[in-house]
């Protein structure tokens, strides 16, 4: 093909020389300009090498046939030397310029083609679906769009390699995982293989390998960015829909449990009314058995209430009615409900005068205090004192409940607020549901407060929570 073009170029020059020499009598300038035109045409049509050969042939032929003395390669007139040299330089330079323009046009054409392919790829990847599905389809799409022979994609979040077909085995899984760690596109022309890391905002998502005819490096970068964005979009959509589904199911659970708890309370009301009625006239063994029924009815009632509270917290459906409320009020409300549990104990309450009110739902907060006091009573020796305090600390109202119990082991201090957690020493106690402190935590956090425990082995524990101080000058 190349040889044919060289021959043709030489023939064109030869035929011009022949026509002017044999058929037409013209001056030398016309011959030279005609040759120059032909050389420009050759360079535009075929390329620089062909044009350069044509230039040399033209210079030699022009000299031999037209410059005196004709039929020799010698040049008599020094002016003709200049003309000849000017002709050669002009021919070669013009050829170069024309070749460059041709090459630019070809490059532009190939860029346009790559842009078109990228665009086609973008369109093809507009489908929805999961991140994994996106990657699986991408390897086929990229092969189809760019005419590569094979593609492989290492998807790092799933530690999985997707391949367009068996030809992609030219690049191993190991190469792909290694490519994910390298910073830029790397092209191996001998293997006709390009690998590139896939990242978004510095976060590695995996790597891409293309095998066969390769698009330009810039296009590979564009492909990689495109696939990174598409994967990220798919992942974000997946996360969002999973979170939404989870929330919906929590809301549904809360609603179900709410109505279930209500339905449990109705038979419990009959049971409790009946059993307490029987208890009045009973004695001995019967009284003991009826007492058990009564206590267990209470336990079921508490359990139902706690399950509902926990479900509401988890569904984010805790309905707080916040207002300015004094610590003294919710502490005394909690104490008034615990009179029985606190029999025979010294309970001190220390609320400084002038303590600002908290911004809180008083009933829920009283429930937290009650939980703390109930815990203190349950896990400290009978008759040991319980101290309740409130103070202002860094703009927050902090409530503390101190007991003289055995203390809590360090590794249990944060887990104690987890649902269903029971300390190692109390694992086999039957009282309580294991939800009390988790509910307290949910309530405090819904208020934007913090809950924590300080404890020293053998010295006792102090349970704390904080609430935002109430403003507005109410109360």
């Amino acid at each position: 093909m190349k040889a044919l073009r060289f021959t043709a170029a030489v023939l064109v020059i030869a035929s011009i020389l022949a026509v002017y020499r044999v058929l037409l009598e013209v001056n030398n300038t016309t011959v030279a300009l005609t040759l120059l035109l032909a050389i420009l045409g050759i360079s535009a049509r075929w390329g620089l090498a062909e044009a350069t050969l044509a230039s040399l042939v033209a210079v030699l032929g022009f000299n031999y046939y037209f410059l005196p003395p004709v039929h020799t390669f010698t040049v008599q007139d020094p002016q003709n030397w200049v003309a000849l040299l000017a002709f050669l330089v002009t021919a070669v330079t013009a050829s170069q310029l024309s070749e460059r323009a041709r090459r630019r046009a070809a490059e532009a054409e190939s860029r346009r083609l790559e842009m078109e392919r990228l665009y086609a790829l973008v369109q093809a990847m507009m489908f929805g679906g999961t991140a994994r599905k996106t990657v699986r389809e991408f390897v086929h799409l990229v092969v189809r769009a760019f005419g590569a022979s094979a593609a492989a994609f290492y998807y790092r979040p799933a530690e999985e390699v997707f391949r367009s077909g068996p030809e992609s085995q030219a690049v191993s899984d190991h190469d792909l995982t290694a490519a994910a760690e390298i910073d830029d596109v790397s092209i191996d022309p001998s293997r006709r293989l390009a690998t590139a890391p896939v990242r978004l905002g510095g976060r590695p998502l995996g790597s891409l390998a293309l095998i066969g005819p390769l698009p330009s490096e810039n296009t590979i970068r564009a492909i990689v960015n495109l696939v990174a964005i598409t994967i990220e979009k798919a992942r974000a959509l997946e996360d969002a829909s999973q979170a939404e589904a989870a929330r919906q199911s929590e809301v549904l659970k809360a609603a179900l449990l709410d109505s279930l708890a209500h339905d449990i309370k109705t038979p419990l009301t009959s049971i409790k009314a009946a059993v307490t009625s029987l208890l009045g006239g009973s004695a001995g063994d019967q009284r003991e058995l009826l007492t058990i029924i009564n206590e267990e009815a209470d336990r079921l009632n508490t359990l139902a209430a706690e399950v509902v509270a926990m479900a509401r917290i988890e569904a984010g459906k805790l309905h707080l009615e916040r207002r300015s409320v004094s610590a003294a009020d919710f502490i005394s409300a909690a104490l008034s409900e615990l009179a029985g549990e606190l029999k025979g104990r010294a309970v001190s309450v220390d609320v400084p005068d002038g303590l600002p009110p908290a911004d809180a739902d008083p009933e829920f907060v009283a429930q937290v205090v009650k939980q703390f006091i109930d815990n203190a009573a349950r896990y400290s020796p009978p008759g040991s004192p319980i101290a309740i305090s409130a103070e202002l600390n860094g703009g927050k109202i902090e409530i503390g409940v101190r007991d003289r119990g055995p203390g809590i082991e360090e590794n249990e201090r944060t887990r104690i607020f987890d649902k269903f957690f029971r300390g190692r020493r109390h694992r086999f106690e039957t009282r309580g549901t294991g939800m009390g402190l988790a509910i307290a935590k949910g309530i405090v956090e819904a208020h934007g407060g913090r809950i924590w425990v300080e404890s020293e082995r053998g010295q006792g524990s102090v349970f704390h929570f904080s609430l935002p101080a109430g403003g507005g000058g109410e109360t």
Partner: protein
Amino acid sequence: MSAGKILVVDDDPQIRRVMKATLVGHNYEVIEARTGEDALQCLPREMPNLVLLDMNMPGIGGLETCRAIRSGSDIPVIILTVRNSEKDKVAALDAGADDYVTKPFGIEELLARIRAALRRSPASPEGGPHTFASPELEIDFDSRRVRVRGNEVRFTPKEFELLRYLVAHAGKPVTHRELLQSVWGPDYGDEPEYLRVFINQIRKKIETNPARPMYILTEPWVGYRFAG
């Protein structure tokens, strides 16, 4: 001789059954209604002495029924509710109920509330009691004298009015709003902190241990109750 005729209004048949068995066992005569509408129909015919009214019923519901009863009668009404929230208790009292009891309840608690509600029903609330006497506390409302464990204690006029109102409604929870409006005047009602201060003063004067009061009990978030 019946201790009184009680109308039990509840949509749950088992609850009506157990109430009937228990209350009859305590010498009350019991009539039943399944809905608020039924209750309102049989009220003029049966003329009960007290109504036990479930809050959550299909149809017009407990609160609406209570208001309807109140519009034509001052018969004692005790509302029974499964909800334990302040809002529901206040709503019950605002609807004109004399008292509320949270389900599930022990029967002794319910009987005590019934006795308290029946005891004051014939007395006119206008005049109020003339005296109150317990082993530790004697109050003579006419001469405004209070003796605690034999010693005379001085009361300010507002403290005395508060005490008089609570004793006149002994056994019944009195809301913050009701107390404020009857002692301070109709423009009051949203100042529970006034009450906290005055109740604390009264407790210091009459209670052996003001931190564990025996006479003036706090009904959390609702108000106060005088335990007579």
